[in-house]
C-alpha cells in the first residue's frame, strides 16, 4: 500500500525560538500585535508500507533517526492511505 505521512517537527515547549521571536517583531512592525507565534517544519513523505501501523512506525523512525533532534524537538505524524 502507498501511504502519505504528514510530519510536523516543532520545538519542545519552553524552548527558546529566536526565529519566531524575530518574525513576531516583524509582524509588529507591520502593525499586527500578536501574543504568541511558534514556527514548525512540515514534511509530506510518500512511501510503501504493509499497513497503516507499519507506515506510522516507519514515519516515527524517520523522525527519530533524522528529521527531529530529540534535544529540542517534538514531532507529530498523520498518516493517510
Amino acid at each position: 500500500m502507498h501511504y502519505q505521512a504528514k510530519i510536523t517537527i516543532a520545538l519542545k515547549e519552553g524552548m527558546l525560538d529566536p526565529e519566531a521571536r524575530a518574525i513576531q517583531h516583524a509582524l509588529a512592525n507591520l502593525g499586527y500585535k500578536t501574543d504568541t507565534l511558534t514556527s514548525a517544519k512540515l514534511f509530506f513523505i510518500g512511501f510503501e508500507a504493509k499497513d497503516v501501523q507499519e507506515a506510522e512506525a516507519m514515519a516515527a523512525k524517520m523522525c527519530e533517526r533524522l528529521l527531529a533532534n530529540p534535544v529540542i524537538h517534538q514531532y507529530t505524524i498523520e498518516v493517510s492511505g
Partner: protein
Amino acid sequence: MKFAVIQFGGSNCDRDAEYVLSEICGVDTDLVWFKSRLDPSYDAVIIPGGFSYGDYLRAGAIAARTPVMADIVRHAEKGKLVLGICNGAQILDESGLIPGMFTINAYPKFICRPVHLRVETTDSPFTSLYRKGEVVGIPIAHKEGRYVAPEQICRDLERDDRITFRFCTPDGEVTPESNPNGSAGNITGILSGKRNVMAMMPHPERASEEILGSKDGEKIFLSMIRHIERNEAK
C-alpha cells in the same frame, strides 16, 4: 603520525585547518573527501567548519549521517582523536559523539568576531598545553552555535570535567554579557565521555599565527600532537 581533515561539500575551513597542521605545526596532514571514506591509519581526524549540505534540515544533520561519519565513529571508539570545529562540532553532536546540540543563536544572526574563552580543563588531549583558568582569544563565526542540553546533561558534563571552554570576559569571568550566542552555562567546548572527542564552536585554526592577531588556538593542535607522540612512545 597522520592527521585527516574531512571535506564535505560546503566545508570552507578545511584548507585553513590543513594549512595550520601541516605548515605551522609540521604534521603530515591529508584532506579527505567524504566520499573516499576514512583510512583506519589516521591518528586524528579534524571535522572543519563550513556549511555542509548547506545547513539543510539542521546544521550538521545530513553530514552526520554519511558513511564517512560511521568510519569516524569507529575511529573514535578505538580511542583515537576527533576534533570538530564549528560546523564540525554540529556534525559531532548530530552523530551522537557529543551530548546536547548547537542550535540557532539566541539573537538569530550570524556572529563573526574575536571572543574570550576560559580554559575549564587541561585534562584532555586537546587542552593539555594550556593552564587551567587561562583566558584565550579565539574567534567565532556562526549562526547556529548556541549550546543547548538538558539540565542533567550540563550537570554531568560539569561533574565529569568535560567542559573545555566557556565564553568569558577578558578577565576570565563567565557572565551573561560575555556569552555571545546564549549557550547554556556559556559552554562552547565539550569532550566526549572518553575525552578523545572534542566539539568546539570557536575557530582555533583562525588563531594559530601572530599575523592573524592570536596564536592561542595553536595549542589545541599542539596538545593533540603531543598526546599522539606520547601514545606512540608507550
